[in-house]
């Protein structure tokens, strides 16, 4: 089987003001696989993730050099349509952030802004089923999303991203605000989702990275220390710093 990278970064550097946050990061994120980005807090994991759908644009002092190629096209190219890019790259945030609208309207949001009028109900149902939330909410689609539990809210946010039919899903520590049961459900979900989507997940939880990912990238102080099969990273790291980190000697 030929390995095909969906998203590739080349010499990716990022500064917030004078602060050099990412240093020459080269990563290829393979299609239909889960790639985990690990590292201690403040190492630039989330910033890296946010480069992939240009969410860092929201911060005024950001400066970026290097390339982020999405299907071979540079997302920082002037011709790139950021809005369309973000539709094709879904994102799930650290803290569940449903809109203060109904469950249904949350999932329908992406469809409505694209001007889709027909078949919304079917698409919402499909997305909720894919996020394994349908059975829990099918009888109360009109209640406020804020009244769901934290785990349900996070799966709702996943459903909301899925409804836009993205090609890549970025997950920024999606379980850090959840209890173990809710976490287990999301992890289970990742296995089914990767059949259809390319997933990049940021986590500070080693076990989680080991459980869910196919590839793992270890970032330290903005530098990519090691990038390899998850198995290899966790059983036979090549770099001393990686070994120190995964065995819990720092971080």
């Amino acid at each position, binding site marked *: 089987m030929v390995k095909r990278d969906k998203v590739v970064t080349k010499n990716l550097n990022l500064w917030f003001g004078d602060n050099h946050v990412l240093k020459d990061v080269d990563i290829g994120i393979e299609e239909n696989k889960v790639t985990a980005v690990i590292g201690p807090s403040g190492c630039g994991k989330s910033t890296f993730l946010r480069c992939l759908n240009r*969410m860092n644009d929201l911060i005024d002092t950001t400066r970026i050099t290097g390339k982020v190629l999405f299907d071979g096209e540079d997302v920082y190219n002037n011709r790139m349509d950021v*809005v*369309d890019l*973000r539709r094709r790259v879904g994102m799930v945030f650290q803290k569940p952030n449903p*809109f*203060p609208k109904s469950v249904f309207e949350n999932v329908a949001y992406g469809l409505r802004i694209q001007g889709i009028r027909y078949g919304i109900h079917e698409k919402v149902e499909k997305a909720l089923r894919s996020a394994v939330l349908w059975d829990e909410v099918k009888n109360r689609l009109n209640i406020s999303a*804020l009244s769901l539990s934290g785990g349900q809210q996070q799966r709702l946010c996943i459903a909301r991203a899925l409804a*836009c039919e993205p090609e890549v899903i970025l997950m920024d520590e999606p379980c850090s605000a959840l209890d173990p049961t809710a976490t287990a459900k999301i992890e289970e979900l990742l296995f089914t989702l990767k059949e259809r989507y390319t997933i990049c997940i940021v986590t500070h939880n080693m076990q989680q990275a080991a459980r869910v990912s196919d590839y793992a990238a270890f970032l330290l102080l903005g530098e990519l220390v090691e990038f390899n099969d998850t198995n290899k990273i966790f059983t036979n790291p090549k770099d001393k710093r990686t070994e120190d980190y995964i065995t819990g000697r720092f971080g």
Partner: protein
Amino acid sequence: MTKEIFIKRFFLFFALLSIFFLAGIVFVLFKEGISLFTRVNIIDFLFGKSWYPTHTPAEFGILPLILGSLLVTAGALVVAVPLGIGSAIYVSEIAKPGIRDVIKPLLEILAGVPSVVYGFFGMVIFAPFIQNLFNLPTGLTAFTASVILGIMALPTIASIAEDAISSVPVSFKEASLSLGATKWETIVRVIVPSAMSGISTAIILGMGRAIGETMTVLMVAGGSAIIPHTFFQPVRAMTATIAAEMGETVVGSMHYQSLFAIAIVLFMLTLTFNIIADFISQKFKKKMTGGL
């Protein structure tokens, strides 16, 4: 220990003064104004169409004054609400930090211009302009007053609305953008709806500001106490009536009492606006803190 309790009571006394003054205002308005209703039927007062307080026999119908106030206030809102909320969204969502740092103080300056200066500007510059533009017999009309009043209420509305908009959690904005919404779609569909209660508060307080404003309507609205039929005729608002006529009344006369009675109506209206605004913002606070 007792000293500390004494100190606490001391400060409590001053904290209660605002309520005391508010109660004092109510008391004074009723004390001076209520005896009018021993001689004038309250229905005739509120719905009477003629205001001839110094005529014999005098007539104390304030319907033209109430309608004058409402017309000018409504007109002011038509100007101030879109412009105020538009400015608030611009400042909090679109303006680059450098531009924001210029515009915000400018809006604060606009809020600081004394109302008599607005009235003066309205009289000497804006009213003649309107008169020529629409070829009217006089430029001092409800329309003129509405525009000037709208500009005055604009910074009030903008500042409260901006607070509400910038307190919408960034996560909502991020979620919307990450789903491929444009900035504009995010503003219209997520940010504004989430800030709606704060925006409503802003509108209601702006309304209270407009209906209670005195000098501008006194100087610019023209002052005819007749029921208005169009925007382009002179009107007389409740506040302007009090301000213009109090100086000429004899203390304790029916005319004097009737002006206090108008103040009761005015006070009740603004009190209602304020309580509604307060209620909405309290509910909003609960919703934001009790949400998760």
